[in-house]
């Protein structure tokens, strides 16, 4: 009887938490009144603060979550999938959420490079651009199907990245950062001046995403619900993003992630890693290349979603935003950087009224975060390789 009671209590607790976060998120998206919006933001921040600081709130929720682990994950995924149904009257937000998923993909790529392996990439926008332009060129000049272009864009970003990486293989940290900055600057100038790439006008009229004969312009009719055409993009991005997140988690939770950490100057030590037999150059290159695959893929998707790509989209500023998402979210924390990516896409849209101040607000947030919480929104946890170990006891796994 007591057992049943605690079971029900935990279950209701989890259900309440998930529904409450869902309602808070949707309310946050839908509310346009600035004051109400600030109220919602404050309420969310307060809830997170209380959760973190008050043991009486944190412990039962964490325990209930452990107990209904699969159910919790399942319902969170279900809500993410159902978001277009909830937001079907505002296609604009579905579009923004799709963009957020693309950002997650980009930021996961940078997280592999910078978070795991410690390679600062301030040229991410350039690789995003390489992906977008590759897709645009192949689609407009050769008429290749969009899905193939996604792959080609990603592969091209990988190839360009590896070519760039060969001369800088001997440099590390700040010098590598400088090289990547130089690359994004040079790439921007190249795009502006290369006539064959459309010059300052960029590439216009890139065909919209489609799969075979299925055009992404049509609305989705399902179970009597009519979802706006933007949902097509959302679901494709979600499928790709899900797959890539799954890959990133598995890489992190493996010897590969550990190898990257071992020579990361921030968390590890290059000399000792070398003495342990880690071929640092090879593994750096691998991290850089895999990261660029993620970034390039998102870029190619972007081109097929907006049908238009031009030099002003590919700036050093964008690179900075991408990298700051990693720092803001928590270096090497997949959950953290994804959350930060979503916030960085949604916040400027929400604060449209304060648009001209957004950069200032963002700067202040970043500085505050670095002072108050250097490890980021959701700091990386100890790697448990997918074994279920509760950190509180840190016991070795049972055999």
């Amino acid at each position: 009887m007591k057992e049943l009671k605690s079971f029900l209590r935990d279950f209701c607790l989890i259900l309440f938490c998930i529904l409450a976060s869902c309602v808070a998120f949707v309310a946050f998206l839908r509310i346009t009144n600035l004051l109400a919006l600030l109220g919602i933001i404050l309420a969310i921040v307060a809830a997170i603060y209380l959760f973190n600081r008050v043991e009486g709130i944190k412990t039962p929720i964490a325990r209930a979550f452990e107990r209904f682990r699969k159910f919790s994950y399942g319902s969170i995924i279900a809500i993410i999938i159902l978001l277009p149904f909830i937001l079907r009257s505002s296609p604009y937000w579905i579009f923004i959420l799709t963009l957020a998923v693309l950002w997650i993909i980009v930021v996961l790529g940078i997280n592999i490079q910078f978070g795991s392996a410690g390679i600062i990439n301030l040229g991410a926008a350039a690789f995003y651009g390489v992906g977008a332009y590759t897709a645009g060129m192949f689609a407009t000049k050769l008429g290749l199907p969009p899905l193939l272009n996604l792959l080609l864009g990603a592969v091209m970003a990988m190839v360009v990245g590896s070519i760039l990486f060969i001369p800088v293989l001997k440099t590390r940290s700040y010098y590598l950062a400088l090289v990547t900055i130089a690359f994004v600057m040079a790439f921007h100038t190249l795009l502006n001046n290369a006539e064959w790439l459309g010059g300052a006008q960029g590439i216009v009229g890139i065909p919209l995403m489609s799969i075979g004969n299925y055009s992404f312009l049509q609305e989705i009719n399902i179970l009597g619900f009519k979802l706006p055409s933007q949902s097509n993009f959302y679901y494709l991005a979600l499928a790709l993003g899900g797959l890539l997140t799954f890959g990133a988690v598995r890489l992190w939770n493996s010897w590969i992630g550990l190898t990257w950490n071992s020579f990361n100057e921030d968390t590890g030590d290059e000399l000792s890693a070398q003495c342990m037999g880690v071929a640092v150059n090879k593994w750096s290159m691998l991290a850089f290349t895999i990261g660029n695959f993620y970034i390039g893929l998102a870029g190619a998707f972007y081109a097929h979603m907006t049908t238009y790509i031009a030099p002003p989209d590919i700036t050093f500023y964008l690179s900075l935003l991408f990298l700051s998402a990693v720092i803001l979210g928590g270096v090497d924390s997949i959950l953290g950087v994804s959350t930060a990516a979503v916030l960085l896409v949604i916040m400027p849209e929400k604060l449209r009224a304060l648009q001209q101040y957004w950069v200032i607000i963002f700067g202040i947030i970043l500085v505050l975060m670095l002072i108050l919480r250097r490890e980021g929104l959701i700091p990386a946890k100890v790697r448990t390789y997918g074994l279920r170990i509760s950190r509180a006891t840190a016991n070795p796994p049972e055999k």
Partner: protein
Amino acid sequence: MTRNSSELFNCERLTKDFGGLRAVDRVDFEVSEGQIVGLIGPNGAGKTTLFNLITGVYQPNEGRFGLREEDLTGLMPHQIKKKGISRTFQQSRLVLGLSVYDNLFVGMLETFHSGFFDTLIRRSRFKKELTTAIERANQLLKQFNEELVEKGFAPASEISQIDRRRLEICRALATEPALLLLDEPSAGMTPEESIELMSDIRRVQENYYPRLSIILVEHDMMVIEGITDKVIALNYGKKIAEGTFEEVTRNEELREAYLGK
């Protein structure tokens, strides 16, 4: 006191110049299997440089060294590690943000073979390796300190200074080297801790790795009293004395190097 006379490691005329400074000057010595050798000398005598030469971090200007007749001169650090020479560093090079296990696994990376397929698609091979790795890690940790096993998934920043040293030695031992180089393992510890650690090293070597040879850098001679089979003294990059602890401590030149004339 040499228990086994078969020769494991030798170096001849090993020399390293940094610009005009000769940091290591034509040093030669031998280490037999199972021997613990103390390498002593005042600060700047060239002890760490000698280690860096033997582990391939620096390339010697002159001379050669080898393990069991095999010449290792000119190899890269990871190749030398593969040949069976493992080391720890004067300043701790553990990754404090990673768990105790992760720090050990870094030492075992070479023995893991699961690639991208095993990582991304079918994890059965990876899981098998993980189980073996955890068992091996527990076995290593147990040799030094039973309590460390409990803390396998705790961040290395949460364990005590002496346990971190032990962990570093465990990591160096993870690949079962033939020769272990310990660079001032007692640096930054209290005299009691130093002595505890030294007796740990001797105990673990005698009980679990009787064939393992160890070279131990130390600038405080008293710490290594009683645990070394042989002591080599360096000053200004030159070998000035070699012999048992008692012989070397009686050496005039060494007394001068430490205490002045």
